């Protein structure tokens, strides 16, 4: 008998923890939404003193350029290699350009660039804001009658949101270039077919614009999570480091989930025939 009660108690404890985890996360989501709303309302400073936002575009966007461009190049090259392997079995190797371009513009550009942005820029933003909170710099600002959300948080948010679409576009462009390098120069697919089939298949509105919309949505999600986790982090070393990890994990999951929803909306619904 005693072993059973112990197991039952253990199970009960697990369910209780799960339940409280879920409720506390839901509460946190509500808090984060109110925070986003407040920050957007108080974005006047970030826009009027655009210098602040420009500095944040530098830290989030420019400093991410290396990883974005290099990763884009490699992803494009791998796509071309793998794609050629499969396409030439069906005699469709001239569609390589289409494969590379559509994969990048519709999915890989926004998603992979978003994931890289979350780990590089998102974690940096969280750590920065969290450390400012831990060293009482945010409180000091409050005491000097300067709203830290308007002065510190909002410029970082808009800097991230503005950087993300540009980074995704650069990723896709580099990827297509990488695909061209491998497909045309290395493997020997006909350059004319590569570009012309790509142009015929990739649509400005349906593919490129949707990709841009995705990258904007991802940018908002990642930067929102990053600034919120930083602002809400417990003001200790351990708290900040946990918050940084949470930013990367939550942003990545959010990107993938949003990607699914957006893809379902954009690329499948509404096509007749």
């Amino acid at each position, binding site marked *: 008998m005693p072993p059973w009660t112990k197991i039952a108690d253990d199970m009960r404890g697990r369910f209780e923890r799960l339940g409280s985890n879920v409720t506390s996360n839901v509460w946190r989501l509500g808090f984060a939404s109110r925070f986003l709303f407040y920050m957007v309302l108080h974005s006047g400073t970030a826009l009027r003193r655009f210098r602040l936002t420009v500095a944040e575009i530098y830290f989030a966007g*420019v400093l991410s350029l290396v990883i974005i461009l290099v990763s884009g190049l490699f992803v494009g090259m791998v796509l071309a290699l793998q794609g050629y392997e499969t396409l030439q079995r069906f005699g469709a190797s001239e569609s390589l350009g289409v494969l590379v371009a559509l994969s990048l513009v519709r999915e890989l550009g926004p998603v992979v660039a978003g994931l890289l942005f979350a780990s590089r820029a998102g974690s940096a933003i969280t750590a920065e804001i969290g450390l400012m909170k831990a060293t009482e710099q945010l409180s000091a600002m409050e005491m000097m009658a300067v709203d830290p959300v308007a002065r510190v948080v909002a410029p970082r948010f808009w800097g991230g949101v503005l950087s993300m679409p540009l980074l995704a576009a650069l990723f896709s462009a580099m990827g297509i270039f990488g695909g061209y390098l491998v497909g045309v120069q290395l493997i020997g697919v006909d350059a004319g077919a590569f570009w012309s089939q790509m*142009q015929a298949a990739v649509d*400005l509105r349906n593919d490129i614009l949707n990709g841009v919309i995705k990258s904007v949505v991802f940018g908002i999600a990642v930067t929102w999570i990053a600034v919120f986790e930083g602002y809400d982090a417990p003001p200790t070393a351990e708290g900040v480091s946990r918050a940084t990890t949470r930013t990367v994990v939550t942003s990545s999951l959010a990107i993938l989930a949003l990607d699914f929803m957006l893809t379902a909306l954009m690329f499948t619904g509404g*096509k007749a025939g």
Partner: protein
Amino acid sequence: MNRSTIDLWVGVFVVAGAAALLFLALKVGNLASFSNSQTYQVYARFANIGGLKARAPIKSAGVVVGRVSDIRFDNDAYEAVVTMNLDASYAFPRDTTAKILTSGILGEQYVGLEAGGDGVMLKSGDRLRLTQSAVVLENLISQFLFNKASEGKEPAK
């Protein structure tokens, strides 16, 4: 890192990003196509449109002259009604035939226009009278099998 260096790099970044977007739009996508040019609308009815989708190209002599804008089902005549936007710089006679063709063996389907000989040209809102539906693979196969079966019977006579 002083202010002017930051400004410089952000400027470079924004220009590079915009250039990438432009590259994607022009070189990769079909911005060069007539998304901005004038078009006029004509209709055609088909018994079977096969795999034709909206935004499929409309070609004549192999050149893209328009796009399918809408496909509807007429519940009274049990036919498909296809709405087509043709580039205004191309005029077609009233007796032009519209056929649903496939590009390549496994390619996507498009509408092929073969010009007739009528002197009067199509106007916006006109209907193409002569149409040929898509080839449905199943019908083709069953036809082939039926022919094979009848051939097989004849030598016995």
